[in-house]
């Protein structure tokens, strides 16, 4: 049990990669806060965690809303007394639109949810980590933040921004014993790519990687657990690609 007695907050923990991270944290002995906009689904992941013997709480949060994030952080710290690990998974992918057709509202929404959330959540939890002189922050970026994707300029920009944010924050909080890193997944077997592709297309793309290995949420969760563990104490400001070899940066 690599994370015994640690308190871990996973935003976007109700489904997909976030759910795999939350369950993995619980299996490693952490007490887990499943923070998600989808309260019912978050509750059911918290129930799964309890069934594994882990202490867990589900908290409804809109990660792009300042007061909502503040409430989530406050109830986490009231209930568990500390926060050791923050995993920023919550994010959106859709809509698909070329730059000239993208509305200002959709631009703002993508940037706010994908990277504004990192700012709001880190701002709330860094003081507690700083007081402990230890902490782990891991943010979900994307390979698309490196190589871009047509009709997803808003998404690519938001994920590249996550990488820049992570590097800057790593420099800021390194002296306090807090590490900050990003994970850049390739396309994974979750609901996200199914928002704009058929099932057949999704599976064909997932199987088209150099490595004959369909990327599952657990493949992304594993490296996140490693970064959250004592073994990764000397790693900060990095963005690691997990993508079955589809992209090598």
């Amino acid at each position: 049990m690599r994370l015994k007695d640690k308190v871990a907050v996973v935003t976007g923990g109700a489904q997909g990669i976030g759910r795999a991270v939350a369950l993995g944290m619980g299996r490693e002995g952490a007490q887990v806060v499943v923070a998600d906009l989808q309260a019912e689904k978050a509750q059911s992941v918290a129930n799964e965690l309890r069934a594994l013997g882990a202490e867990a709480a589900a908290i409804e949060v809109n990660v792009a809303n300042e007061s909502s994030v503040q409430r989530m952080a406050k109830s986490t710290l009231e209930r568990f007394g500390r926060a050791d690990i923050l995993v920023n998974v919550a994010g959106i992918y859709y809509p698909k639109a070329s730059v000239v057709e993208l509305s200002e509202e959709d631009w703002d929404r993508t940037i706010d949810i994908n990277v504004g959330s990192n700012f709001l959540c880190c701002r709330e939890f860094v003081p507690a980590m700083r007081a402990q002189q230890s902490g782990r922050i891991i943010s979900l970026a994307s390979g698309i933040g490196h190589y871009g994707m047509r009709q997803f300029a808003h998404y690519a920009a938001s994920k590249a921004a996550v990488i820049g944010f992570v590097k800057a924050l790593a420099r800021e909080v390194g002296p306090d014993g807090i590490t900050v890193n990003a994970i850049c997944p390739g396309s994974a077997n979750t609901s996200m790519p199914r928002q704009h592709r058929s099932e057949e297309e999704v599976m064909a793309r997932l199987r088209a990687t150099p490595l004959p290995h369909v990327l599952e949420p657990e493949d992304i969760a594993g490296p996140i657990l490693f970064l959250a563990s004592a073994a990764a104490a000397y790693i900060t400001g990095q963005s690691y690609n997990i993508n079955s070899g589809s992209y090598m940066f």
Partner: protein
Amino acid sequence: MSQVALITGGGGGIGGAVARRMAAGGIAVVIADYDGQAAKKVKDEIVGAGGAADAFALDVTVAHKVKTLVTDVEKCFGRIDILANIAGGSAYTKRIEELTWAQWKEVMDVNLKGTFLMCREVAPIMQRQKSGRIINTASNYGVTGSALRTPYAAAKAGIITFTKSLALELAPDSVLANTVAPGPTDTPRVMEKESAEARRGRWWPNIPLGRTAVPQDLAEMYYFLTTPESAAITGQTFHVNGGVVMP
């Protein structure tokens, strides 16, 4: 049956820590080092702690010696699951006009050619097994460059791209190849050249995490790259450097 790892440079600071970490994880380790005595010392330590280990002297720049060792290891253990190429180093800090052709070749050979020769012999074994993990060693200097270390930086940059190409080549057989890029690390070899105090003064203020690495920091990353948790990772470069470089 336990997994088998072949570790070059396994008698050195980082290599020794990697061998000990893998052995602690239940992997049988074959330690190869230019300095056969150093390899044996790490082996004895691991065996003394209840692990499985063997040790050999090896010059990774000599093709026929590499071939013989890899053949012997496969014969003896029946398989090779992990290859960690850690042998290497930056023997010279010299201005380019002061570097001889022989010195240039020496640094390129021990770092880049040694990695190539080892991979060339081990990859077919892993391809037959339809599984394997190759972990090569670069350096943050392979990305940033470093004054007075032109051959070392070139060799390490070469290892990063060599590994990406190899990863693409071996992926259809589920053989993974990744690179670990250490930053400033307190190994006996570098500590010999500089006092601990001078080293602290030079490095620590420039590192976000406020210290240089110990070999164990690196060993954990090599070990992670042998586990099922890293099954979807290939062709990537893992910088472990306290934040001194964030590519």
